[in-house]
């Protein structure tokens, strides 16, 4: 399956947005993971932004960055949101409340606990009425989400916004799911390759054993392994370096998503 990439969004410690983040990934700027981004997710209405979780703001921030670059109208673009654990911060608050004798649950907290909260807020912020999917595949949520998004773009013949994100869970939930640092990224994919920044050829193959791509440089390898959403890093690095690359994304123990990236800038 072939798709064009029209826009990219990125957010992680030391990678605050695609504009500067791509230079860091390409080795043209130093990588300083001590600088933590504080996404303003300006597309969210003020009252929604105030109430929303960090997770929602991270996901919406990368989504709006990628969409702005694509030049497409967000109302015309279907969405696929992938996250291993979704709203861990909200789930922690809910489970704390449910462990008290009163069990008073905030209605706002409850409706923010669903896995499609970020997708829902994106739809509200943009008034988008296209199809929207939210999914998980544990450590391989990025590959599963990319597969869903690329398949959607090719079969339904329309553009898709793919967003992948995971934030560290608060304690004590972090004991069950240790994720060291936050990561979010977005790609706007189209079935047509004209005007694209890059082309991605995506194939699914059966393969045994865990054999995954590494990030091109060691300093990003830890980030890639720290967070399931950061499994997209090798793809983002290839885009940043505007170089041709073949990336094998692990999908469960027995499938691979092979992503061949070619820049259209040369």
């Amino acid at each position, binding site marked *: *399956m072939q798709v064009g990439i029209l826009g990219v969004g990125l957010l992680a410690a030391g990678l605050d947005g695609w504009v500067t983040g791509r230079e860091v990934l390409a080795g043209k700027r130093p990588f300083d993971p001590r600088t933590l981004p504080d996404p303003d997710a300006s597309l969210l209405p003020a009252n929604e932004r105030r109430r929303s979780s960090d997770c929602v703001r991270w996901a919406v921030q990368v989504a709006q960055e990628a969409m702005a670059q694509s030049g497409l109208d967000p109302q015309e673009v279907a969405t696929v949101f992938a996250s*291993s*654990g*979704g709203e861990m911060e909200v*789930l922690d608050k*809910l*489970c*704390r409340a*449910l*462990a008290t004798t009163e*069990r*008073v*649950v*905030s*209605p706002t907290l*409850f*409706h*923010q*606990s*669903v*896995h*499609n*909260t970020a*997708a*829902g*807020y994106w*739809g*509200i912020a*943009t008034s*988008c*009425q*296209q*199809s*929207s*999917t*939210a*999914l*998980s*595949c*544990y450590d391989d949520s990025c590959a*599963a989400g990319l*597969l*869903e998004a690329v*398949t*959607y773009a*090719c079969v*339904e*013949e329309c553009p898709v916004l793919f967003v992948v994100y995971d934030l560290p869970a608060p*304690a*004590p*939930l972090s*004991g*069950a*799911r240790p994720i060291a640092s936050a990561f979010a990224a977005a790609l706007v994919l189209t079935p047509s390759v004209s005007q694209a920044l890059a082309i991605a050829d995506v194939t*699914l193959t*059966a393969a045994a054993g865990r054999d995954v791509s590494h990030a091109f440089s060691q300093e990003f390898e830890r980030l890639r392994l720290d967070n399931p959403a950061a499994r997209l890093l090798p793809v983002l690095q290839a885009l940043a370096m505007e170089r041709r690359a073949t990336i094998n994304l692990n*999908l*469960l123990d*027995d*499938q691979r998503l092979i992503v061949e990236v070619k820049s259209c800038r040369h």
Partner: protein
Amino acid sequence: MPKRPMTPLTLSAYTLVTANGRGVGAVSQALRGRRSGLTPCDFEDVLLKTYIGRVAGLEEFSLGHDLEPFDCRNNRLAWLGLQQDGFMVAVAEAKQRYGADRIAVVMGTSTSGILETEHAYRNRDPLTGSLPPWYTSRYRYTHNMFSLGHFVRACVGLQGPAMVISTACSSSAKVFATAARFLQAGLCDAAIVGGVDSLCHTTLYGFSALQLLSTSPCRPCDEDRDGLSLGEAAGYVLLESSERVGRKGAIALLGYGESSDGYHMSHPHPEGAGAIRAIRQSLDRAGLQPPNIDYINLHGTATRANDSVEDKAVYSIFGDGPACSSTKGWTGHTLGAAGVTEAVIATLCLKQGFIPGTLNCERVDPTLRSRILRENEDRPIRRVVSNIFGFGGNNCSLVLGAL
């Protein structure tokens, strides 16, 4: 809007467990005998005054040795579902035909095994606040959203692509759409789709906080309806290309439509804009017009707002032509499992020439304009639309019919 009708996909095996019993026989007997599965809430130590659709027996067994890490209420229910109606045999035959790596597993759930996390939070270490080790080592297999997909894939021994879709109530309707695309793209030759959602404190207290729980068994479309009843269910369907396995008369997925409201997290668009979009798309993909539809299985949760908005959407497309009903009075709202619950019920209706009237609806709300059916009808039907609308304004409609 879809460019062309989709290739129908045969439902070559299907099964369902709800509060009405295990397997499609129990479900269809309850539907025909108008016996509700809803009972006063007796879930764990929950003291809410509400009715629930609890699946009997989940507390009394645990998963066997090989599957022990997965043991939680949601996966027990998932396992129970897999054992009904010869579903495992049908999957084994499909494995023979296509190979384990050519069958996808696409599951839907809204809360996965969160009940385990709720229990773990009550058992935090009083000094450190940390969660008990029996829980932390099994988070991946119980509460994580993908747990259900992992579990089903492990139980049936498949090696194809897999994922869990979690878009609140529309989850296990959208799995049909994803699987249809996977088949269309040649990523697999067959797919197991389905969904499992089980009772937990999060949804019981959450819907209670939203003041959406009825104190009596839910009464969809009734003028005095006052909220929903929560239920739990496990349902599965084996989807295959009709060109390969289709026989005249077999039930097939003919169309699907997916949309968002882009409006509010927990209130639907007041004019049902997203719902209308999903229904129209499902008809377009099926290559059908509104008069071709014999029956509409409404989302029909029995909350005042949702039933009214759905009625507006349905009436604007179909007028008062097709019979409409909600089956939530039998099963309760099974949340992430609602999509597959109602797809399997629609399949039974198509197979048996039968339309369930809306249970517990004594007097249809006079402001609703669609043709809401109260009593069961026995007559052949060929095409059904099933609507599922969820939190985040996430909508999905499926068209099912006989080949």
